[in-house]
Each structure stands twice: as structure tokens, then as C-alpha cells.
């Protein structure tokens, strides 16, 4: 009996929350509406809310995959699948955490599944990328660091050189704008581990960028 009443109360709570939230299709969206509000509005049938939500988060998600996978086509495919999953699961979405946490949680799971299926490919890609990075970037050369394009290439190559766990933590912080706690939630690790990974990642980047930064 208690379970029944709790279930009924839960249903009522969700409906009540959805009713309170402005979900009219004609609603104008600005920065005052959070990602969570937009997602709820979309789950109630507002397509424009999703459009706004997508435009806010499409680039970070795409870059997250791009930095991890190194291929634009694969990154687009993964981003597409993640957005499809968001669309499919809109009715069961509950604003328990930030929408970006929810989004990158899906992305992380997707990536883990991919690595699990293609572990050999990943190893080869990593080796190739490392070779590529060593061939294309010469961090110690102060002349190449002057140019902005070259600086960009250096940063990207340094990120590519990072181990996968450190790279993911760094990307989640920079692209998803997540806190250490939220990153820990996404990667399903404790906070100290995440902090440690982040520290090592920054240390490596700093050492790679030291000549450019000191200048």
C-alpha cells in the first residue's frame, strides 16, 4: 500500500513540476532559462526548447568526442547518438543534477562502450597519435611557439599525448564546465582520484607549454 501511494505521489510530483514550468511553444528563450528548464520544456512537447538546448551544448559535446577520438566523422556520429538518446529519454528525465552532467554521463558511457568493443583500435590509434604528435609538434622549439596557429597545434598535440583518463578529466572540465565532484560522478570515480588525474594533466600541459607561457 505504501509503495502504491508513493508511486502515485511521485507521478503527481512530476506532473505538478511540469505544469508549473512554462512549456508553451511560443515561449522566448534566453540565458535566464537553464538547461534543465529547457529539457523539461522539451519533454512537455516544446521543440524550440530543444533547439536552444542543442545549440548551447552541441559544440562542447562534439569537441569532447573529437579530442577523445581524434576523428571528426566519428565525433559527429557519437554526438548524434548521444543526442538521440537524450531525445528518446526525455520523458524519464528528472532534474536531479545539471543537464551537462547528464549529457556527459551519456557521452562517457557511450565512449566506454566503444573502447570496450574496439580496444585494439584504440591502442593503435593512440600509438599513431603519439607518433603524429611527435612528428608535428616540437614543444621545445621557441620559434614555432610564436605563431598562434602553432600554439593551437601545440596545445592540441599535448592534449592528445595525455593518458585517456587524464584527458577525459581535463576535457570534462574545459568542455563541460563541470566541477571536480561532477566529473567524479560522470566517470564514476572518487573525488581524490579525479583531482589527482587533473593535477597530472595540468602538470604535463604546463611542462609542454612552459616555453610559450614564459615568453
Amino acid at each position, binding site marked *: 500500500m505504501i509503495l502504491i501511494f508513493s508511486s502515485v505521489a511521485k*507521478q503527481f510530483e512530476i506532473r505538478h513540476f511540469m505544469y508549473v514550468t512554462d512549456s508553451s511553444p511560443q515561449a522566448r528563450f534566453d540565458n535566464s532559462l537553464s538547461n534543465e528548464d529547457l529539457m523539461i520544456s522539451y519533454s512537455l*512537447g516544446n521543440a524550440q526548447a530543444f*533547439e536552444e538546448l542543442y545549440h548551447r551544448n*552541441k559544440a562542447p559535446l562534439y569537441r569532447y568526442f573529437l579530442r577523445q577520438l581524434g576523428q571528426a566523422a566519428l565525433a559527429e556520429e557519437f*554526438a548524434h547518438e548521444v543526442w*538521440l538518446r537524450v531525445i528518446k529519454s526525455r520523458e524519464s528525465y528528472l532534474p536531479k543534477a545539471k543537464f551537462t552532467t547528464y549529457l556527459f554521463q551519456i557521452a562517457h558511457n557511450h565512449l566506454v562502450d566503444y573502447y570496450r568493443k574496439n580496444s585494439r583500435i584504440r591502442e593503435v590509434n593512440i600509438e599513431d597519435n603519439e607518433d603524429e604528435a611527435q612528428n608535428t609538434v616540437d614543444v621545445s622549439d621557441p620559434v614555432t611557439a610564436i605563431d598562434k596557429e602553432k600554439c593551437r597545434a601545440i*596545445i592540441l598535440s599535448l592534449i592528445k599525448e595525455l593518458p585517456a583518463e587524464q584527458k577525459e578529466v581535463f576535457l570534462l572540465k574545459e568542455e563541460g564546465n563541470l566541477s571536480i565532484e561532477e566529473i567524479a560522478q560522470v566517470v564514476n570515480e572518487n573525488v581524490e582520484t579525479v583531482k589527482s588525474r587533473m593535477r597530472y594533466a595540468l602538470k604535463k600541459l604546463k611542462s609542454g607549454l612552459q616555453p610559450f607561457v614564459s615568453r
Partner: protein
Amino acid sequence: MHENDSDDIEKIISDLYSDVSQEQPSSALDEKVLSEARQELQQNSSDNIKSFTKKGGGPFSGSWTVPVSLAAVIILSVTVVVTIEKERPYQLTSTPDEMVIAESDSKSDAALAGKPLLKGIAIEEAVERKAVKSKSEETLADETIKEQEVLALMQQVEPEQRQLANKPVPASEGKAEAPVRQQDPVSAEDKLDKAVRENIGSAGAGAAGSSAAEVEIASAPPVLTKQVIRTEKKADSLADSPAASEERAAEAEADKMRTFATMTKPKPVERADVSRLSALAKRTDSGDVDEPVMEQAKPQAIQPVKPEAVAASPAAKLVAPAESFNAPANANAVEESASQTNCSALSVTDCLNSVECMLESGEAGRDYQCRVAKNQCESGFSQAIDTRDTCESRPGCKYIAANCFCPPGVECVCGGGTPAVCVPE
């Protein structure tokens, strides 16, 4: 200082990364995702319309259906259980002791004989049910014949009993000449029971494949055996013609009353007093009243008591006037006053057993009053013991069977009606 440098480097790295990280997904991906999002909404809205139409759009449609259904089922189940529990009064009416006795195996005859009467009824029913279940139809047919013979024997024995009971006692004959029923009420019953037991025993022994229940019936106490026989006789009478059903019903009432009289077993003091009063009244009419009556009428079951104690007891109301039996002129007054006092003071059971009192229902049909017998038909007629034959053997008397009358201590289908009476035609 070192931490500040670290934070600065982290900030610089973050700014550098945000400057260089400008990649965007292709517009094709944007269109694809957005179009799928719109399609999903349209499909969902059409599904919602379909499901709303399909389910009738009531307040309990959609996600409310399952919880509301479960709640309804649980409430209904609880209601049914509570209702069933409330509609079981019969479980509360039987004491646990009786239930155990009724359901227990009735193999121990000695234990059965020692039980109280109410428990004995439950045992009778249990034995009866067991006997009916275990007997085959052929055995039942054979037993029915035997039982009819037993009943005929009973009918022969009972008039003899009544004649002995109603016979006045000559004053000079003393204790040995007292009526058989009063002097030795058990002996007549024993005679009857012995005959019944023999008859049933022979029937049980002769039947092929007789069960243990039959043996139990044959060895059961007399009251049990008679009860079983009467019940089965009632069952047989259901198959008879409707013309005889009324007579059978009256006979059944009489059987019930006889059973009641056997069960109640009135106290010897009162029985003796009633018979003594009857004898005294007759002797007073003839002027033959003398001292030995007092001694003769004392029952065997009573210890001799002092005259002062007797005078104080209720029975003394019957006995005390006998002290003035030396004066014949006062005899009628003594009888009248004694009878009036006796009848009004008697309980329903004693009134039914009494031959000098009549139990009649009041105007309401439920208040019973015990009054003195008014005429020769009522006088000498025991409503609990005597039958139609006893009543109608007297000239000018008519027997009216009991109508839905239930003696105290007996479980009946109906009650509150008039008891059996013997009235002038």
C-alpha cells in the same frame, strides 16, 4: 605563492584552450538532430492522442491505471476478508470444549458416559455423522428395519411406564409399592436401553462390512443410541406420504420431549413430592390419610433431614401441609394450596415433567406460565413424558401436539411456541 602560480598556469592553459578550441559540428548534424527531435515530438503527440482515445480519456487512464487498480484490488480483498470474518457467528457460539468433543473420536465409551448432557448432544451428532458416512445404503436399510422394531418395543415399554407412574400408591404398601418410575426411574430406562442396545448390536453384527462406527453405536450409552435411532427415523419419515407427515411431526415432537425428559433427569425430591402429592390428594379424597405416607414418599436419594430444615426448604412447601393430613376436612385446601404454590414456583423443566401442573404459553406466545391442571385431561398428564396415546386413552381427551416448542437445554430449529397439551374434547 606556489599555489598562486599553479592557479595562474591553470587559468592560462584554460584560456589558451578556449581560444584554440573552436570546432563546431557540421550543420548537417544539426539538421539531423533537430529534425529527429521534432519527429519524436510529433510521433509522441499522435501516440498520446491514440492512447487517450483508446482508453476513453478518463481520469484513471495512462499512468494512473496500475496504481489505482492495485489499490482497488487491495481494498476489495480487505473488505471481503473483514465481511467473511464478521459473518461467522456460529464459531463464537460453540465453546472450544464442545468443538473438541464434537470433533474428537468417540471411541471411549466410558469417557462419553461421563460427559455432561450438552456435551453429550455434540457427541451424539458426531457419532451420528460418522455412522451415516461409514454405513452403506444396504446396511442402512437393514438397520432401519431393526430400528422400527426397537421403536415398537419402546412404545410398548412407555405405556407400561406411564401406568406404573400414574398408579396410586396404597398407603399401607410402603416404599416397595411406590410407582416404578418414581421409585426407580433408572430401571425403566435401563430396560429400554438394554433392548435398544441388543437390537442395534445384532443389526451391526449382521451387516456385512460393518465399520467401527457401528460398533461404537452399539456400545454407546443408551441416550446416544436412542438419539441416533430417532434422528434416522426422522430421516426415513421424510420419504413418506404427506398425509402421515403431520402425525410424524407430532411424534417427533413427542420424541423430542421424551429426550428432553431423559436429559433433564429431574431431581428426585421434586419428582417424589409430585407423586406424593398426587397420592395424597387421592387418598385425601377417600379419607385414607395416615402417617406412613410421609415416610413412604421420601425418596431414596435424599438423606433424612430434620423437620426444621425441611420446613425451611422449598420442598417443604409440598411436604409441610401433609402434617395436617389427620384432619380430613382440610385435605382439599391442602392440595389446592400446595398445588398452587408448587406450580407457580416450578421451573419450566419441572413444570413440563409435572403431572399436576401445565405449562402454557402466555398471550405474547413467549412467556410461559405454569399453572395447576384444571381438568381430568390435564391432571396426570406430563407434557414432557406422556404422548398422544396416553392422552387419548382417556375418554373425552384430545392431544394437541407441541407447535414449535423448544424445551430449555435442547437445541431446536424453532422455539417459542406452545408445548404439547391434553385438553378435553
